[in-house]
């Protein structure tokens, strides 16, 4: 799995990005990356990434068996972070959970799709059966993007989570089967 990286890819606008797994020394670069994520986007992230302690705990607990963090870099700067979360034990050990954050200046260039497609391949390689994404109801653009990549809405938990501002938000659970490819969209 790890042998796939580092690798290079080209975005729709020609930008060269390199993809590789996160290592401990990325701590500062990650912190800077999340500082660049607009505050209104940060509201909808699961963890409070504005706190250095949050990033510190990711670095301290780095364990690819549990969380596989894939970074996209442009000129050495982190512009995207996609993570695949797995459980070693229990009734969800055949599932992988995906989380994704893209630098606002690198959206609509296909970077998010590129990273999610990498995670789909990694998931298949790890013999996972399905990938799960959890988003808040407010993340309409992300919702549409994941649906385009074959994720289907499995459930909506009404006002289940709280954003950074303390407001209740719906939690949308999206699932994609890794074993069968979704029907291609023909129009």
């Amino acid at each position, binding site marked *: 799995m790890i042998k796939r990286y580092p690798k290079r890819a080209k975005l729709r606008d020609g930008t060269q990005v390199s993809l590789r797994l996160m290592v401990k020394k990325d701590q500062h670069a990650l912190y800077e990356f999340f500082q660049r994520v607009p505050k209104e986007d940060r509201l909808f*992230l*699961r*963890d*409070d990434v504005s*706190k250095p302690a*949050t990033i510190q705990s990711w670095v301290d607990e780095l364990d690819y068996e549990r969380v596989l963090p894939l970074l996209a870099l442009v000129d050495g700067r982190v512009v995207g972070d996609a993570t695949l979360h797995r459980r070693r*034990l*229990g*009734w*969800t*050990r*055949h*599932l992988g959970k995906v989380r994704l954050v893209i630098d606002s200046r690198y959206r609509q260039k296909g970077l998010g799709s590129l990273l999610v497609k990498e995670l789909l391949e990694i998931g298949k390689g790890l013999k996972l059966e*399905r990938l*799960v994404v959890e988003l*808040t109801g407010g993340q309409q653009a992300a919702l549409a993007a994941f649906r385009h990549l074959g994720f289907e809405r*499995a*459930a*909506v*938990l*009404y006002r*289940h*989570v*709280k*954003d950074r501002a303390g407001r209740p*938000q719906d939690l949308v*659970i999206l*699932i994609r089967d890794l074993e069968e490819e979704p029907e291609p969209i023909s129009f």
Partner: protein
Amino acid sequence: MSEKRIEDQYPKTTVLKDGTKVVLKTMTHNDREGLHEFFARIQEEDRKFLKHDVSKREVIDSWLKDINYGRVLPLLAEVNGKIVGDATLHRRSSGWLKHVGEVRLVIDPAYRRKGLGSHMLEELILIAADAGLEKLVAEIVAEETAAIRAFRRFNFEQVAVLPGIVKDQGGRYQDLVVMVLDVSTALLPDWYYF
């Protein structure tokens, strides 16, 4: 839910409907063998619907490895020193689910229908309310209809069904029912209100 307060509250003794005396206490490292024996007494058809394969020693050992009541509060029920019930409250210290706790409950088959499960769930709801949690979640395999009914009695509501999402310990795909309790609307037994 500071550890100090939890330690002040437990152990405590309670009496079941049939007169059985039960001690409720928090799990410690000394409970390793007792827990193995407890889960060995749970029949396979029940065990397969649990989130973890509790027939494996490593599963129970992993729970005991990092006991942290702020993250997972494990409450045990004992009769004459034998574990007959295990109820856990799981929570997160940060993130968008910080106000949400998750409950899991396993009762020795010989001690069901005596009110033990309800009693343990009440304890968890009260601990959750005390800790400022706003919601409790229970995730139950859809076939476990008795458990779903029991949670409903406390005002847990079914908010979603995830079709075929979990794989039971027998390797079969099962629908998962997600039940949520708004802690402020929990239906507690009469003794709590009077």
